[in-house]
C-alpha cells in the first residue's frame, strides 16, 4: 500500500481495511508546559492488530501512550476509542472503557503481592469473575501460580514484566498499550516477553506497542509508525518498514 | 492610734493635699462618662474566664447607671476589646483604649500576660486592674502604684487551703501543679509552704501540662502513695479529667481544689466530688446575702444561672472602681488610684472588699474566702467555711 517516506497518507490505515478501527487519534498534540512532546499526530489501531510505535528516546512515543490514557497533558486533537470520544475523559474512565496500559518500568505495587497486583488490575471485576480471569491467565503466565503470594518488589525484572502484563490483561481490555516491555531485561527474558506478545496476538488481543528493539518489534507487528521529535516520520506495514529500516539509518538516527 | 497608723494617716493627708488641685480640676461633672477600657480575651484560651466576667460587669454597670451613675452623676461605659491572650497585642489594645479616652484600664485574667498592657497604662498614669489574675507580685511590677488585682491572689488562697487541710487533720499531702502558668504553680507552692508550716508533710509532687488529657500515671502514683489528702492546682477541663482518672482507680483520698473550679462544669467530674472540697471567693451565700442578690439579678438579666464564679468577680471589679471614683471625686488617674488604695469594706457580690491597708500587699484586695463542697444531686456548691488565712507566704 505504501512505502517508507510516504508520510501520514493512507498507509496509516489498518492492514485489513475491513477490520474495525478501534482507536483513532487525530491531530493529537501533547505538551509539558512549553515543551511539545507530540505534534499533530494521526494514528489508528484496528481490532486484532499489533501496531508498533518506533523511534529514538525522546521521540514522543511514551507521551503518546500516556496521552491515550489521559496521563499526559493533551493540548490539541482528539482521540476516539470504539467510536466514543475519550479525549477529555479521566484516566480511570478511559481504562474502564477497555484500554489498558503497561507502563514503562512496569510500576508494580512493590509492597503488595502478585495476586494483589492482579486484583487491582481487575478492580472492576466481581471476586468470582476475578478468580476465573486469574485462572485463565495461568497458562500464559505460569509465574502467577508459582509466585502468587510473593511480594511483587522481590521478583526478578522478567517476572515483574510478566506480572505487569498480566495485571493489564486481567481486566479483559480490548486494547493493550505496552510501553517498552523489553527495557532493561536480559536477552533471554526479552525472548520470553516477545513470546508472550505473540501468544497474545494469537489470542486476538489488540496491542499498541512502544519498543526500542525495532527489529524484533517489527517482526511481530502488523503495522508500524516511526516517530521523531514528536511527529510521525514514517508509517506503514511492518514488513515494508522492516526492510527499509534495516538498511536505512532512520531508526538509529531518528532522534538526532 | 499607734505611731505607724499616724504616719500613714499623715502621708495620706499629704498625698491628698498634693493631689488637691488636680482633683478639684476634674471634679465629677454630671453627664460625663467614666470609661473603663478592657483589653480582654474574647477569642482565645482566657476567654473562658473573661466572658463570664464581662456579664458580671454588665450587671454592675447597669445597676450603677440606673441610679444615675457614680455618685448619681457619672455614667460608666465599658469598652471591651479582644487581645487574644497575646501579651504583645494586649499592650497594643491598652494603647488603643487610652487613645480612645479610657479612664481606667482592665486587663485579662492573667497577671503575667497582662503585664505589658498594665505597664502601658501606668505610663499613661491610669490605674489598671487584672480582671481575675491572681499573682500577688503583679501590682508591684506595675510602676507608680497603678497596678491592682481584683482577687486576693494565689498566696492567700494557697494558705487558706492549707489551713483548711490542717484543720481537717490531714498530715500528708500529694500535690499536682503545672509550670505552664503562674496560677497553676504558685498557688500550689503557697499551699505546700503553709501546710509544712502547720506541721504537714508533702509526700509527693506531680506536674502536668495545661491541657493534658491523661492524668492516670499521676493518679496511680497518688492512689498508691501514703498521702491522706490530694491537693490539685488544676482547673477544668483538666480537673474533670484528673478527677475521672482518680475515680476510675477507686481513689478514696480526699481532694482539695482551687477557685478555678468554681463552675458547674466541675460536676461532670462525678463521684470524686463527694470527697472533695474547694476554696473560692464569695463567702456568704446564704439567702439575702449579696451573693444571692447578685445571682438573682443575673438570672433576671441572662435567663440562666451564672456560668461560673467569675461573673461575681466582674461585679466586684466594677463596684470597687465605682467606689474609688466616687471617693476620689474625680476621674483623674492618680486620684482614682489613691482612692482605690483606700477603698474599705465595699459591698461586692462575693462579700466585703478592702484595698486599704491590705495585709497581702498594696493593690491587692482582702476579701473572704469560702471553702465549699459539692452537692452533686443539685449541682450546687455548699459553703462549709468562710474566712481568711491567719498567715500566708510573703510576696516574692
Amino acid at each position: 500500500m505504501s512505502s517508507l517516506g510516504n508520510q501520514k497518507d493512507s498507509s496509516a490505515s489498518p492492514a485489513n481495511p475491513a477490520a474495525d478501527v478501534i482507536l483513532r487519534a487525530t491531530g493529537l498534540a501533547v505538551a509539558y508546559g512549553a515543551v511539545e512532546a507530540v505534534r499533530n499526530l494521526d494514528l489508528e489501531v484496528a481490532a486484532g492488530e499489533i501496531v508498533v510505535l518506533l523511534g529514538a528516546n525522546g521521540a514522543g512515543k511514551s507521551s503518546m501512550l500516556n496521552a491515550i490514557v489521559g496521563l499526559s497533558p493533551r493540548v490539541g486533537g482528539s482521540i476516539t476509542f470504539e467510536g466514543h470520544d475519550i479525549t477529555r475523559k479521566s484516566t480511570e474512565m478511559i481504562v474502564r472503557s477497555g484500554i489498558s496500559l503497561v507502563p514503562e518500568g512496569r510500576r508494580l505495587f512493590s509492597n503488595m503481592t502478585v495476586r494483589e497486583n492482579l486484583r487491582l488490575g481487575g478492580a472492576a471485576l466481581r471476586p468470582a469473575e476475578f478468580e476465573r480471569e486469574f485462572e485463565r491467565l495461568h497458562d500464559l503466565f505460569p509465574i502467577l501460580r508459582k509466585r502468587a503470594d510473593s511480594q511483587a518488589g522481590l521478583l526478578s525484572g522478567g517476572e515483574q514484566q510478566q506480572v505487569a502484563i498480566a495485571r493489564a490483561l486481567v481486566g479483559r481490555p480490548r486494547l493493550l498499550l505496552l510501553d517498552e516491555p523489553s527495557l532493561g531485561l536480559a536477552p533471554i527474558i526479552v525472548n520470553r516477553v516477545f513470546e508472550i506478545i505473540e501468544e497474545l496476538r494469537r489470542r486476538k488481543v489488540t496491542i499498541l506497542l512502544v519498543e526500542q528493539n525495532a527489529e524484533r518489534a517489527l517482526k511481530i507487528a502488523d503495522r508500524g509508525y516511526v516517530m521523531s521529535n514528536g511527529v510521525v516520520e514514517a508509517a506503514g506495514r511492518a514488513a515494508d518498514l522492516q526492510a527499509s529500516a534495516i538498511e536505512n539509518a532512520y531508526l538509529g538516527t531518528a532522534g538526532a | 492610734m499607734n505611731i505607724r497608723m499616724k504616719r500613714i494617716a499623715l502621708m495620706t493627708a499629704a498625698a491628698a493635699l498634693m493631689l488637691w488641685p488636680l482633683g478639684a480640676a476634674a471634679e465629677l461633672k454630671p453627664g460625663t462618662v467614666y470609661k473603663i477600657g478592657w483589653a480582654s480575651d474574647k477569642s482565645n484560651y482566657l476567654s473562658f474566664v473573661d466572658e463570664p466576667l464581662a456579664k458580671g460587669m454588665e450587671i454592675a454597670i447597669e445597676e450603677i447607671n440606673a441610679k444615675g451613675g457614680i455618685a448619681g452623676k457619672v455614667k460608666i461605659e465599658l469598652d471591651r476589646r479582644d487581645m487574644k491572650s497575646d501579651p504583645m497585642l494586649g499592650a497594643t489594645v491598652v494603647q488603643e483604649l487610652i487613645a480612645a479616652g479610657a479612664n481606667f484600664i482592665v486587663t485579662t485574667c492573667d497577671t503575667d500576660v497582662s503585664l505589658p498592657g498594665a505597664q502601658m497604662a501606668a505610663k499613661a498614669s491610669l490605674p489598671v486592674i487584672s480582671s481575675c489574675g491572681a499573682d500577688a507580685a503583679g501590682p508591684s511590677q506595675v510602676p507608680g502604684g497603678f497596678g491592682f488585682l481584683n482577687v486576693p491572689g494565689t498566696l492567700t488562697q494557697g494558705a487558706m487551703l492549707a489551713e483548711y487541710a490542717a484543720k481537717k487533720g490531714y498530715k500528708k499531702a500529694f500535690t499536682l501543679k503545672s509550670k505552664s502558668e503562674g496560677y497553676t504553680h504558685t498557688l500550689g507552692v503557697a499551699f505546700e509552704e503553709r501546710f509544712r508550716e502547720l506541721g504537714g508533710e508533702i509526700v509527693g509532687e506531680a506536674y502536668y501540662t495545661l491541657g493534658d488529657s491523661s492524668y492516670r500515671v499521676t493518679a496511680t502514683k497518688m492512689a498508691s502513695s501514703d498521702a491522706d489528702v490530694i491537693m490539685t492546682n488544676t482547673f477544668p477541663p483538666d480537673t474533670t479529667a484528673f478527677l475521672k482518672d482518680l475515680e476510675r482507680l477507686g481513689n478514696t483520698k480526699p481532694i482539695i481544689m482551687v477557685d478555678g473550679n468554681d463552675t458547674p462544669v466541675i460536676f461532670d467530674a462525678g463521684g470524686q466530688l463527694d470527697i472533695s472540697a474547694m476554696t473560692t471567693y464569695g463567702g456568704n451565700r446564704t439567702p439575702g446575702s449579696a451573693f444571692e442578690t447578685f445571682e438573682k439579678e443575673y438570672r433576671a438579666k441572662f435567663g440562666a444561672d451564672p456560668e461560673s464564679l467569675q461573673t461575681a468577680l466582674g461585679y466586684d471589679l466594677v463596684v470597687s472602681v465605682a467606689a474609688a471614683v466616687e471617693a476620689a471625686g474625680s476621674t483623674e488617674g492618680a486620684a482614682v488610684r489613691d482612692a482605690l488604695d483606700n477603698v474599705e469594706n465595699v459591698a461586692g457580690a462575693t462579700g466585703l472588699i478592702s484595698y486599704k491597708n491590705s495585709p497581702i500587699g498594696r493593690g491587692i484586695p482582702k476579701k473572704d474566702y469560702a471553702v465549699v463542697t459539692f452537692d452533686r444531686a443539685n449541682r450546687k456548691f455548699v459553703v462549709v467555711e468562710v474566712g481568711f488565712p491567719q498567715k500566708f507566704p510573703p510576696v516574692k
Partner: protein
Amino acid sequence: MAMSQKWWLRALIGSAQILVLVSLLVAAVSLLGSSTDQRILTVFLINLIAAIGLQIYTGTSGIISFGHVGFMALGAYGSALFTADPAIKAMGIPNAPDFILTSAMGFLPAMLIGVGVAAMVAAVIGRVFVRLGGSAAAVATLGFMVMVFTVLSNAEEWTRGAKAFSGIPAYTTMGWCMGAFAVILVIARLLRESDTGLGLRSSRDDAIAAQASGVDVVNSRYVMWVASAACSAVAGALYAHYIGAILPKAFHFELTFLVVTMVIVGGQSITGAIVGTLLITILAEALRRLENGFSLGSFSLSEAPGLTTAVLALLIVFTLTMRPQGLVGRWELDDLTARWLAKRRPAANGTALPFEKDRERNPAA
C-alpha cells in the same frame, strides 16, 4: 547588564529595593498614623525580622522549622536578663548568678549576648536537625520549641519560670527595628545569593543531583540553620525590649504558627517572607479594627468572638488555594522588577535575565 552582575551586587541591589519600599511604609505610618498604628508597625517590623530569620533556613533548604520561636525566646531572655533593672532582678530572680543580677548593659551588647546564646544552641543541636527533612523535621523542630519553653518555664532562678519577667528597658525604637531589619535583610540576601545558598536551593528539587554536582547539602544547611537562628534571636531581643515584660508562653505554638504562616503564605524568597508578613499583619489588623469599630447598633461584630480569627484563617486557606507556591513564589523583588523592566524594553541582545539563568536549575515544583 544583568548577565555580568555579581551575586553580592545582586543581593545588595535587591536589599536596597526592599529597604526603600519598607522605609517609605515606615515614613508614611510615622507621619500619618496614630500611636497605635506606629505600635503595630513596630510589631510588624519585629515579626518581619523573625520571618526573614526563618526564611533564611526554609527558603533555601525547603525544610520547615517550627523551632525558630525557640531561638526568639533565647534571644529575648538572653538580652533581657543582662539589661533589666538590677533592683527588679534582685526582687524577681534573687537566686540568679551575680553576673546577671548586677548587669545593666546597653542594648547592643545584651542583644549580641542573646544572639550568641541562640547561635551557640543552634550550632550544638544543628547537626541533628539539618539531617532531617519533611515531617520528621517539622516534629523535631516543634519538639525543640517545646523543650525551650519547658526549660524557660522551669528555670525559675533565672527566668521567674512561667511568670512574666519584667523590668526590661524599652530600648526598642523604630530606629533600632529599621537598623536591625536592614542588617538582617542584607545578610539574608547575601546568604541566599551566595554559592552556598544557590547550591542549597538547587538541592530543594533534587538533593541527589545537587550533591552529585558538588553541593554539600548538609554543611550548607548547617550554615543557614545557625545564621537563621541568630537572626530569629534578634527578633526575640527586639520583642523583649519593646514589650517590657516577657514570659515563656509568649514564645509558644501561637507565635510559631504565626511566623511559619507568614513565611509560607508569602513564598519561598526573602521578598516572600516580607509580603507574607505584610499581608497577614494587614489582614489581622483590618479584621481586628472591623471587630472593634462595628459595635454600634443592635448587632455588634465584637459579640461574635472567634469570627475574625476564622475569617483570617479562611483567607489564608483561600490564598494558598489560589497560589500554592505562596504569593510571590520563589521570586525576589529585584527579579520581578528586572522582569518588568525587560518587558518594557524588549531585550535587544537577547541575553538571559539573571533570574532566568540562575533559577533555571531550580524550577518551581
